[in-house]
């Protein structure tokens, strides 16, 4: 058994081949084995393409390690390709010398044709630089499940379990977690349960019995903070953060949304949590969703809505209403590739400027961003805390990459989460709808049903304190500035910006959102080359942490990598009038560590002389 520090495995097959399932099972067992990990599911475009074709390929990559993992990995060490199309689409990412497992049963002429191969790649030496393991997976699977008497189609559906069994053998993993999962999934269908079990077992045994692999690998446990862990995808994490915040604030959660990729899963998750008093409302469109959420907040519930770019655009007008009505509201934007319908299943970070400035007139709103899948929990919780404390809408940005990707999460103790205290106004004495808390500048939350507080609010400018309609010019100026000041006050809830790596030096890599992993990995590699580089990752984009400017000033240069055309870079320049370097990528895909590293090496004057000029 060979010990490895880190491995990247990619499963690829047709959409019908169950690759997402295979990947996530492998992920679970990896997590249980105590490795750090990061994953990247890669769905095909939205509509199912014909089986066996390139657009129909579905992939799942997992990077696991005995040390910190930040990204799903740039290149794969192992590729499992269930058919020629999967091979063609993914082979470019397998490192030279990597292990390639192919299902030869699906390399018939018609399969090759569908993938557009003239000659079988298994025969034309084009794969010579890899270790190719050809297995007749379909046949072996059929054999394994023969006795159960399934029809061929159902039997063939088990072949992913066979492949998974092989991987478990290769990486020295127990089968229990998948066996348990099968039990849950197929409990009612004894035949399917048995077939899948056998296929899994057969894959494992096949490796144990034959000499298909020359080596077997072990990736040791990752020494990490002690506690209870689970694997979590960003959208689940977001959903749980909201539920936890509702619980801690003792408010019922009202979640209104309209389905849209890649945000819909938050709705699906929450719809399962009615037992926690969660009400989910699938509205007729995004405008109705935010409007209903505003109504709920007005009436004393925690109103939340969630969408992606095009839906965010539609919510613009109502965001203005929430701003002037000064009601708590959380709006989550799971960003995707644009503009317009764009690349709906791909990731991007290009809604930042819209979140910050995309409203008519002066309508400032706090904006947060989650850095990783598990961070979505923390940041959705924070969003609620800010919304309630300051009586304001809050926008939380996540994106398709972390929404679907999973990572291990140290499950927090609910009672240790920061407090969120709600106090509805009840005293009619001296009640004014727009009188403010001197600390937070929040107005009182005075909800219908409270005797003696009957009052009217709305979207017309309000008189200071009373909240009556006012057309007075100076009052307007006062209110515009007060609303801005209130959002600035949110800084009191914003922790100081921390820096990982060097605290001062030649280059600060300043990121936000889902680029966390790639930057972290790149900075570590740069530092191991002797460069003085720090990594600050912004989770609060409006207002910025108090110390941000001073953090930036400790470095000679600032580099901002973003999956857009340089939006944060622009904002920082506009705000601090100091030049920043921008690294951009707009390919619907996350950065690789190397892409970030290369730019660091260009910019940072290195002790080893590799860097560029100062």
């Amino acid at each position, binding site marked *: 058994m060979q010990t490895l520090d880190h491995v990247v495995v990619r499963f690829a097959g047709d959409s019908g081949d169950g690759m997402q399932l295979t990947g996530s099972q492998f992920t*679970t067992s990896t997590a*249980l084995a*105590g490795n750090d990990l990061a994953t990247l599911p890669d769905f095909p475009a939205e509509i199912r393409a014909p089986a066996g074709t390139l657009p129909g390929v579905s992939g799942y990559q997992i990077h696991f390690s005995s040390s910190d993992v930040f990204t799903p990995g740039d290149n794969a060490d192992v590729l499992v390709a269930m058919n020629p199309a999967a091979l063609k689409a993914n082979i470019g990412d397998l490192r030279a010398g990597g292990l390639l497992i192919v299902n030869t049963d699906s390399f018939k002429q018609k399969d090759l044709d569908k993938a557009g191969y003239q000659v079988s790649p298994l025969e034309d030496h084009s794969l010579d630089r890899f270790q190719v393991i050809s297995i007749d997976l379909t046949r072996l699977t059929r054999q394994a499940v023969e006795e159960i008497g399934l029809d061929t189609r159902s039997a063939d559906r088990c072949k992913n379990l066979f492949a998974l069994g092989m991987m478990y053998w290769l990486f020295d993993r127990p089968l229990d*977690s998948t066996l*348990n999962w099968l039990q849950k999934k197929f409990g009612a269908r004894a035949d399917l349960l048995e077939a899948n079990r056998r296929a899994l077992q057969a894959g494992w045994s096949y490796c144990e019995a034959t000499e298909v692999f020359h080596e077997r690998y072990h990736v040791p446990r990752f020494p990490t*903070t*002690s*506690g*209870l*862990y*689970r*694997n979590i995808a960003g959208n689940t994490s977001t959903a*749980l953060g909201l*539920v*936890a915040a509702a*619980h801690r604030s003792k408010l*019922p959660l*009202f979640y*209104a949304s309209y389905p849209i990729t890649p945000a819909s899963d938050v709705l699906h998750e929450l719809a399962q*949590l*009615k*037992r*926690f*008093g969660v*009400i989910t*409302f699938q*509205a*007729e*469109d995004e*405008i*109705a969703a935010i*409007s*209903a959420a*505003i*109504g*709920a*907040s*007005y*009436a*004393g*519930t925690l109103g939340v809505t969630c969408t992606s770019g095009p839906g965010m655009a539609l919510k613009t*007008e*109502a965001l203005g*209403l929430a701003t002037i*009505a000064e009601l708590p509201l959380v709006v989550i934007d799971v960003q995707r590739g644009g503009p317009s319908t764009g690349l709906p299943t791909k990731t991007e970070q290009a809604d930042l400027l819209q979140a910050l400035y995309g409203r008519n007139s002066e309508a400032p709103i706090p904006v947060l961003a989650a850095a990783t899948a598990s961070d979505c929990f923390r940041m959705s919780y924070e969003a609620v805390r800010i919304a309630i404390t300051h009586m304001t809408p809050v926008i939380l940005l996540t994106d398709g990459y972390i929404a679907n990707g999973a990572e291990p999460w140290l*499950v*927090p103790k*609910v009672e240790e989460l920061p407090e969120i205290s709600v106090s509805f106004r009840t005293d009619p004495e001296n009640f004014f709808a727009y009188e403010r808390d001197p600390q937070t500048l929040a107005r009182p939350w005075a909800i*219908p*049903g409270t*005797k003696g*507080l*009957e*009052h*009217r*609010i*709305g*979207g*017309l400018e309000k008189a200071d304190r009373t909240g009556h*309609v006012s057309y007075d010019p100076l009052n307007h100026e006062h209110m515009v500035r007060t609303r801005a000041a209130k959002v600035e006050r949110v800084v009191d809830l914003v922790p100081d910006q921390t820096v990982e790596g060097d605290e001062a030096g030649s280059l600060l890599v300043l990121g936000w959102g889902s680029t966390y992993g790639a930057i972290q990995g790149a900075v570590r590699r740069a530092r191991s080359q002797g460069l003085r580089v720090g990594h600050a990752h912004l989770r609060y984009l409006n207002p910025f942490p108090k110390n941000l400017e001073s953090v930036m000033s400790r470095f000679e240069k600032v580099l901002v990598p973003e999956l857009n055309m340089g939006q944060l870079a622009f904002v920082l320049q506009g705000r601090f009038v100091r030049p920043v370097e921008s690294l951009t990528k707009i390919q619907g895909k996350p950065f690789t560590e190397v892409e970030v590293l290369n730019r660091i090496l260009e910019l940072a004057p290195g002790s080893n002389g590799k860097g560029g000029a100062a």
Partner: protein
Amino acid sequence: MIQPNPELNLTKKDFQSDQEVRWCPGCGDYAILNAVQNVFPELGIPRENFVIVSGIGCASRFPYYMNTYGFHTIHGRAPAVATGIKVTRPDLSVWVVSGDGDALSIGGNHLIHAMRRNADIKVLLFNNRIYGLTKGQASPASELGKRTKSSPMGTTDEPFSPLALALGANARFVARSVDVFPPHLKGVLAQAAQHKGSAFIEIFQNCNIFNDGAWRGWTERDVRDERVLNLEHGKPLVFGAKANRGIRLNGFKPEIVEFEGEPPRDLLVWDEDNPEPAMSFLMAGLGDRPGFPMPIGVFRKHEETTFETRVHAQVDEARSKAGSPNIQTLLEQGDVWTVS
């Protein structure tokens, strides 16, 4: 049927806010405000439990003048906001006030979905067949060919029949009244209040500045008895100053019959509780048939489980199945592992 709660001891005055009413003198909105302020104290609902939600328009200033909770939202979205309120707070009495532009033009989608869903919200449509607040453009309720600021040669599109639209969307309570018929209006409002479920009430309203006399042909004192037919549940359809005319069906075609004395047996007897609203739909179009009177009153009243009831039933069911679910357990759900 109305249950004024004597303990509440509410009067019209309790529903008047301290804001000066700022509609044009002579505007029909005053009469509607008056009717609402007269009806609310009678409903047996504590004042603090009323919420009035509106969009934008002259009509939509309504909440400011009612001393209840009020939310003047954005153009067209009031039914959606109201749905959020009602589904989270079924204890509140939620009313939407809207204009023909607000409800039928920009807000059409929210209106039909609110009706379909059957949340217990009452939508009052102040129909003046014009955009008042923006000073006189055509609305989707303006007559074909109407000349307005935005249609100097006349509009080129047929208006909606608001009632037909609401029925097409399966509104369970559908009614019509008139600003200048105060007792009738109060009656309709009271019936809407008692109905459990989505309600849509079209109120003919005069905008004396930009569309004066839009309803005059039906509602002026000298014509109204001849031109208006009041639908009353269980009663035959009779109209006319001398109550000497009635409506009967010939196959599917309505006909007018004149009679003396007792109404003939074959007159249509009004049944407002229609699970299938085709008959209500026929009535909604009656006023457009040449020679026929304009029906007012309740076109449909059919109770079904409301949206918020269904939603809360699911929450309750999930809760009772789960016992007392623990949030920590939720977070720790699935395959977990411990690092020590």
